[in-house]
């Protein structure tokens, strides 16, 4: 275990969640430090997604506490977590395929016009477009036109849009669920670069992934989940890939 001097951005203690006979979370702890990429790994059924759902407000744990910037929080829905500054990019990419990139970036948070038109919810397409261009530029996502429909993009570019959207609006934490799962080598590389840039902008990132090479390439620390608990929390540079897998499968303990 690492000693943590700064206040964790997001921390959890003793989270439990039961579904009838099945215990998905069995007193799991969690800790995300400022400015880090924390990978969450674990075998199927280890409670990874349940943990992430609890942190992102998609489910309410039976017991345990979650702290954001040291203050206890109780998320009842994903929008509670969003309002608190935690943005999640889901595996199945919550995008509207027939709508433009700019519209997708501002989905549900459209920029309104000023004055009376704004009160009538008339949107400012120009400003949305300009900000989309500026923002995608900052994250070095090279897409020619923000007026393109998202469905015209490649898988990696779509993932880029989803990541950019969450990074644009997250005040505290970005959670990425298997962001490279459906991507080729080149596209994965692009998304990993993007994740680093998000971190370099000061936003801590939680990365759930099955892809060990990607986890070791990009993460600062690794949270290994096993049997509903955190089996280990290690600095990525202090552990080898075979050891991580061994802890994950229970062949080895720390």
């Amino acid at each position, binding site marked *: 275990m690492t000693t943590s001097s700064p206040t964790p951005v997001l921390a959890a203690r003793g989270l439990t969640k039961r579904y009838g006979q099945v215990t998905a979370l069995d007193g799991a702890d969690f800790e995300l430090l400022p400015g880090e990429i924390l990978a969450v790994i674990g075998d199927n059924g280890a409670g990874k997604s349940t943990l992430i759902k609890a942190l992102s407000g998609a489910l309410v744990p039976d017991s345990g506490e979650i702290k954001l910037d040291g203050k206890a929080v109780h998320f009842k829905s994903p929008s509670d977590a969003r309002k608190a500054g935690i943005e999640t990019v889901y595996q199945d990419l919550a995008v509207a395929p*027939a709508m433009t990139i700019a519209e997708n970036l501002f*989905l*549900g948070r459209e920029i309104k016009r000023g004055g009376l038109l704004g009160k009538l919810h008339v*949107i400012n397409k120009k400003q949305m477009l300009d900000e989309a261009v500026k923002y995608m530029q900052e994250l070095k996502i090279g897409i020619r036109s923000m007026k393109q429909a998202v*469905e015209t993009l490649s898988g990696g570019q779509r993932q880029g849009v989803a990541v950019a959207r969450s990074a644009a609006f997250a005040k505290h934490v970005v959670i990425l669920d298997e962001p490279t799962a459906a991507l080729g080598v080149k596209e994965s590389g692009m998304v990993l670069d993007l994740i680093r840039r998000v971190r370099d902008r000061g936003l801590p990132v939680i990365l759930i992934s099955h892809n060990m090479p990607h986890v070791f390439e990009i993460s600062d620390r690794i949270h290994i989940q096993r049997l509903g608990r955190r089996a280990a929390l290690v600095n990525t540079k202090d552990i080898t890939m075979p050891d991580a897998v061994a802890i994950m499968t229970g062949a080895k303990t720390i």
Partner: protein
Amino acid sequence: MSTQTPKSSNPASSSILSKLPPLTILGPLAALLLSIIFFSLQSDRFLAGRNFSLIVQQVMVVGVLAIGQTLVVLTGGIDLSNGMVMALGQVVMTKFAMDFGMPPYLAILCGLLVTMGFGFLNGLLITRINLPPFIVTLGTLNIAFAITQIYSKAQTVSNLPDSMLLLGETFKIGETAINYGSVLMLLLFLFVWFVLRDTAPGRHVYAVGNNAEAARLNGIPSKRVLLIIYTLAGLMYGIAALLLVARTSVGDPNAGQTENLESITAVVLGGTSLFGGRGNVLGTLIGALIVGVFRNGLTLIGVSSVYQILITGILVILAVTTDQLSRRKG
């Protein structure tokens, strides 16, 4: 992927292409123009201002119904009840005015509230109990039909006050008489088009139709959007009822029996996808006009109405096929 310089210094070709509305609106427009050219060559009476005014007048009821239908289809739903709800609306309007001696405006308001109530009921069943729109509106279609028949005792309501028929009256531009109802229809199309295109709630309708779960995860209250859309569609059906009363001068309990399919035809011909999330209400106007032009033109050149139905059927299949194929490609 290349890092491109920002601003609108995109290559001209791509920016023009992205500005042009896709096939979804150019296709219907081309079909409309071709059919107009075709019928102009077939009949010299076709290309008269009077005839065009007549075509618009003939499509105004289905046109306004189809506005409501477009809203519903954009969310990924469908509304089979709209013709019957309209019939109920016009019976309520006319009977309230005649039986209770209600002031016409109040009676009209009651009719609109009834049609909105039906829309709200559709929305409630679809969002709260998660029933498929097809089944829900098939049920409310029958309920609205039965109530209409029971309440009116299958009797037509006539001798209506003039103020209820105002929208059926005309004004002249040159030689062409245009009725107020047609103008109201066109204004409604423009208004809904603007709201869908340029306001946040309008974009949310598309978002819900594209991916309701994504919309929800991004903080758009998908279910509330659906409920509002079905209710607004109900309002459109009430306005269509008022237009029908104005055009026919009666409250007819047997009206609206084929209008549900006609409104769907207009929506589909207009390029709005039955899968939701893509399309445009101006396309629906074009779709309604295509149907109107075909009906009118085929009548002028003496083709019997059975063939008109046949041709409409073929057009719908063509439009839906185009939609399906373009989706498969994407």
